[in-house]
């Protein structure tokens, strides 16, 4: 948000950067399967010359064959709500050898994540990490947790964020039907969810003192 409002300078790929690009091999036909969780989106990389809608409840496919290794950037192309302009797509095309190498290193990384999720985290660690993860929530609930009255509820003093922990975790993981609150369980790790719930309960004007551990989140996955 600081970048959008001009407080921080914009990088060359402003609005077109993601945390985790989609990695595909070059010179191989790649088939994409698209679906959506809440509303209709559209998957579009201009250089691939095609786009397809992602429709909740239904599955759509499109394919591509990338010849040149490199980074390809695109955006969601179907109005999907307030943050429609902030849904970048990045595809990293790697040569077959590099792709194999990447695959192997990913598998190792996954093992480390599992170890991370298994250990006990301190409140301080969770709050620090949770503040970072909260970036996912800022667009609607605001950096100060005040939300946008009428459209998006506040986190501060919200009965979900101050009530039972299990219900809070469930809302973050599964979203809330019929509202803009989406499900984050496929997007965030156990650690992320535990941290952000801990953060929401102990910052932004809330002070419940509850700590949520990654293992707790994992048990309800």
């Amino acid at each position, binding site marked *: 948000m600081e970048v959008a409002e001009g407080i921080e300078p914009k990088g060359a790929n402003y609005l077109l950067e993601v945390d985790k690009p989609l990695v595909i091999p070059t010179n191989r036909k790649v088939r994409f399967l698209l679906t959506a*969780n809440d509303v209709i989106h559209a998957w579009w990389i201009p250089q691939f010359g095609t786009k397809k809608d992602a429709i909740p409840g*239904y599955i759509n496919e499109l394919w591509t064959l990338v010849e040149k290794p490199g980074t390809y950037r695109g955006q969601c192309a179907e109005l999907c709500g307030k943050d429609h302009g902030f849904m970048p797509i990045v595809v990293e095309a790697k040569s077959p050898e590099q792709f194999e190498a990447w695959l192997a290193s990913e598998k190792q990384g996954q093992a480390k994540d599992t170890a991370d999720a298994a250990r006990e985290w301190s409140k301080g660690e969770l709050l620090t990490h949770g503040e970072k993860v909260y970036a996912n929530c800022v667009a609607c609930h605001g950096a100060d947790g005040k939300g946008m009255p009428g459209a998006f509820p506040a986190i501060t003093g919200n009965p979900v964020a101050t009530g039972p922990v299990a219900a809070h975790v469930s809302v973050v*993981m599964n979203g809330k039907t*019929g509202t803009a609150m989406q499900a984050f369980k496929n997007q965030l790790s156990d650690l992320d969810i535990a941290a952000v719930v801990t953060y929401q309960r102990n910052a932004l004007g809330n002070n419940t003192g509850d700590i949520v551990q990654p293992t707790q989140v994992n048990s309800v996955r």
Partner: protein
Amino acid sequence: MTAATQQPPANRRLIFRLVLAVFAMFGFGFALVPLYDVFCDITGLNGKTGVTDSRTVEATPIDKDRWVTVEFTGNAASGLPWEFRPTVAKMEVQPGALTRATYIARNTSNRTVVGRAIPSVTPGEAAAHFKKTECFCFTEQYLDAGETKEMTVQFVVEPDIPRSVNTITLSYAFFNTEKFVKQKKITAKQQDTKLEKTHPGKKS
């Protein structure tokens, strides 16, 4: 003294016909709903799949020379606190052969939740040739708190499926359907709703 009573007969007739046309078109808008379903069933638009019965399947010869890959995927939509995934990612099938696949669903919440799976098949031209004889998506599914259940789908890929199709993907989106199901049925729970045999719902 209404405007209509003063109108010459020619006007009145014409107005009557036009008003009739307006109501007819309003009705037509709603008639498009069932028409759309029929259209989807015929063309496989939107990956809607059809239903058949096992007798028809037994009667169709199996195409022994051809293998088609069927991929399975599934997800629980937001608002449904379930974990839901296929037990195998993909399998090779022969057109005409009745095949069985399973999915695993687990209720991660602490209450009974009712959901319904919506099937979808891609590519579209395969959808019209992908038929199910039995599916957990025909009825509402009830899971108690923490309950895990294996769910079965039995399907056949019809032998007249276009040659160009080598890979078919079957996807299920599981939705929370509490608001569509009467509350007392949820408390009465599973007894009568355990996977009844082929009782095709409106959409399947």
